[in-house]
């Protein structure tokens, strides 16, 4: 019945394209093709780098990292003072002055000091921190950062927002 055998060829395109071994200058063509593709890859990488450089601004008009928090006698003992302008808490604790970043480490909302709870609370996702910046509730992944504080020559408390401290440091006045 089946007088016609089904033929299945490995490569249906065979015969349509000249065989590779027919070309006499394969080595040269191969090299040129590789050179072409290689230079395209280099150009693409260069374009990517160019784009990254272009889209990263080199000059920013943002607030300077060092802020003048105020005279030490502005902060009563055992007080937590938020300066929303610079996003820091200046805390006059029993061991001395220190500063905490007020931007929630979760998603960047500005936190607020709740004196009745003795806690720093974030309005966005409900994170809470104690006055040492350590998380007591909520989704924040890290404690609030400690920032470098020092007393300037003219008697002002200065805070450097770009320098976070690894271990607590207190400034005695």
């Amino acid at each position, binding site marked *: *019945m*089946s007088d*016609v055998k*089904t*033929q*299945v*060829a490995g*490569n*249906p395109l*065979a*015969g*349509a394209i000249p065989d590779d071994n027919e070309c006499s200058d394969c080595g040269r063509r191969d090299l040129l093709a590789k050179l072409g593709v290689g230079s395209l890859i280099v150009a693409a990488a260069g374009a990517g780098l160019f784009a990254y450089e272009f889209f990263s601004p080199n000059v920013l008009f943002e607030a300077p990292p060092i802020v003048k928090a105020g005279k030490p006698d502005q902060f009563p003992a055992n007080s937590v003072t938020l300066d*929303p*302008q610079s*996003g820091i808490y200046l805390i006059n604790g029993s061991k001395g002055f220190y500063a905490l970043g007020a931007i929630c480490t*979760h*998603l960047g*909302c*500005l*936190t*607020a000091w709740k004196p009745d709870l003795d806690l720093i*609370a*974030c*309005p*966005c*996702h*409900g994170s809470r921190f104690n006055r040492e910046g350590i998380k007591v509730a*909520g*989704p924040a*992944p890290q404690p609030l950062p400690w920032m470098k504080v020092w007393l300037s020559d003219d008697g002002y408390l200065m805070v450097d927002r770009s320098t976070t401290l690894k271990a607590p440091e207190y400034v005695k006045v």
Partner: protein
Amino acid sequence: MSDTPKMQAEVQSDVRKNPRRIAFILRRTSPHVKTQDEGRVMTYPTALTRFIITLEVAFVLLVWISLLANAPLEGIADPMHTPNPAKAPWYFLGLQELLHYFPPVVAGVLIPGLVVGALIVIPYFNINIEGESLWARDRQRRLMVLSAVLILFCLFLVFFDVIVALVPTLVVGGIMLWSSRFSHESPSRFQRWLSLKPLSFWIMTWFLVELTVLTVVGTFFRGPGWAWVLPWRS
């Protein structure tokens, strides 16, 4: 005789020799192919008119909404004052609800990434063209595996206190396991319908219910400090 195929496919390698031959009719049958090609209408003007009517309906509805309700506009952006609660647009509130439970790298990157990845691979992953029911084969084994997966997942949610996501999971998962008791002989039409559903249906339905519940909770039931509130008691 009867088990020989009616026709046989042939792939010819040499296109120049046999340019057109694709199939041989081996038995004496009519080349008529059974189709269920039904009626067709012209795109222009029938389908085009339908689209224009749709556009008009959408436009009229939205114009009415725009005349009746004003888009929200709050005070000017103020980096020194975070509103409480600070909410994203409604379609991101499901995500924001998850951000309340999981660290940002999980809720903000991993989960959305997995969802998008899962959506993309849907048509390529184990295509169940026939839409075979989940319980058609290996009923016992599948019941065991799915129960175990469900229990583990629920324990995970309990561990992270994600009660909002736990309830829909329990409901959809429960109905899925419950549907294993039904077959096409079940008395109620709803039970017969449930018994025919493939696994992909259950996963997508779970996703849809989860998305809806999280979004509704984030939109209406979350107040200051992302604490629970009742929308009718504001």
